[in-house]
């Protein structure tokens, strides 16, 4: 439970940590678009170099970023198997009776793997260097212009921040209920399918019950303090862009430009 790397904030002291969340979100957005532009190997080298630089500047360990990628390994293997079986173009590498591997199958898989890897490392850098509340504040500010066309920016941001706020609580709760049920003899690791279903049920049901309880209490507490989502609220924390934020955004726009350039030319 405590080993989830994806989406976890790491309290370090780095340049990237100190950046404006709005700038970080915009950089993520630009580079993300760039990742999806088919700019070939050069494009990926440029993006890869930028991501490595970010990783270095944020003082995150490569190990941490790699750990975040663990969940996609199985997906990649699955994808490789499907691609090998389906894609029969390019040069044949292995031919063994009915079984054959073509170069395109491997390249196609690599292509998707690299894209996914970039996306995961980028989002990991964002979430590891930005406090969840700063992140939602950034999102809220960035969505502000869309309020004119009826987008409830504040409500969306409040929903996200409440959801984020309760992730650690839910993890803690899960751990607690697991401990309580383990004390009643539940074995979460071994057992037949029926026992497994039962053990998961003994975890999920209490988790739902307490989550609904919590949601209701929170709603009451917010209303009791006069919360009205449609009223204008002021902020304790005011965001401010600095030189590094502008530089970062400039770099990401350049990367996007390069990728579009390679693609179009």
């Amino acid at each position, binding site marked *: 439970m405590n080993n989830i790397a994806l989406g976890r904030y790491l*309290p370090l002291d780095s340049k990237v940590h100190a950046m404006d969340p709005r700038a970080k979100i915009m950089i993520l957005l630009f580079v993300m678009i760039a990742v999806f532009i088919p700019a070939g190997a050069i494009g990926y080298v440029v993006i890869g170099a930028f991501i490595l630089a970010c990783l270095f500047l944020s003082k995150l360990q490569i190990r941490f970023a790699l750990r975040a990628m663990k969940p996609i390994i199985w997906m990649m293997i699955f994808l490789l198997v499907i691609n090998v079986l389906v894609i029969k173009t390019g040069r044949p590498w292995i031919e063994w009776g009915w079984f054959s591997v073509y170069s395109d199958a491997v390249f196609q898989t690599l292509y998707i793997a690299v894209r996914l890897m970039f996306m995961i490392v980028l989002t990991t850098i964002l979430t590891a260097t930005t406090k969840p509340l700063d992140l939602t504040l950034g999102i809220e500010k960035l969505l502000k212009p869309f309020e004119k066309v009826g987008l409830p920016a504040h409500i969306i941001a409040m929903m996200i921040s409440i959801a984020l706020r309760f992730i650690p609580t839910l993890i803690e709760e899960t751990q*607690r*209920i697991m401990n309580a*049920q383990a*004390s*009643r003899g*539940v*074995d979460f690791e071994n057992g037949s399918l029926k026992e497994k279903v039962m053990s998961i049920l003994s975890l999920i*049901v209490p988790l739902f019950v307490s989550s609904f309880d919590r949601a209701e209490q929170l709603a009451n507490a917010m209303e009791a303090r006069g919360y009205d989502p449609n009223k204008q609220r002021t902020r304790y924390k005011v965001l401010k862009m600095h030189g590094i934020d502008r530089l970062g955004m400039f770099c990401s726009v350049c990367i996007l430009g390069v990728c579009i350039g390679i693609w179009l030319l």
Partner: protein
Amino acid sequence: MSIEINHLEHVYNAGTPFEHSALHGIDLSIPEGKVTAIIGQTGSGKSTLVQHLNGLLIPSAGTLDICGFHIQPLLKIKDVKALRKEVGLVFQFPEYQLFEETIEKDIAFGPKNFGVEEEKANELVKKILPMVGLDESYLQRSPFELSGGQKRRVAIAGILVLDPKVLVLDEPTAGLDPQGAKEMMSLFMDLNRIHNKTILLVSHDMEHVMRYCDHVIVLDHGKVLQESDVHTFFEHPEWMIKVGINPPAIIRLKLMLKEKGFLIPDEILDLDALVKCVREQVMLHE
């Protein structure tokens, strides 16, 4: 056999930026067949210590001997289920562990996990229910329609039904009304006196500690600050106040009387004896 804890240490999230040491070198001997209170402020390591007792946590260093099990660092306990049957752990707010459709099923869940046949488990449930003050009419009701106090009784019954030798209770009376708390405590006292169970009680309530416990352990920042029998413990209220423990009302009354010039022997801990002592002195004075 008592519970022996030697140089127990526990570090959470070792090797990550979230590393946090919760227990440093706990040495304890918890007597068998007694009621032992574990007290200490939030974050003093009570819950961490308690979770070692039934193998939910494995020590980072040190050893633990409980019910014939020898627990060592970084070594998985061979038959952890057997240990959990011997040491019943009731967590804080246990009502949150209920999940079955009926109370009968929920209480029978534990025994069934330990391999008891369904019929036998249901028999055990019928036997345990009156102990927690509920009757058979509750068997087929949903645990979720009960009041908070009743839910807790059902959850505690879910542990008692396993018939553990050692019962560990983490703040069992938190959030209950005084009457409910009193009933709950007398249930535990019966378990100790009639069924001879060793009870460990994590508590903030000094009144309960004084009235019900035999032995007191004070934890502070992951260390044992004091370990003594309950009488010795409450004979030094000045020390308690110094370490931030609010003494029971009777002790505070004793302190006030002493300040006014009464001579109260240290060993007086109940109201009747105190009244007698004060009356004697007043009579003497007159």
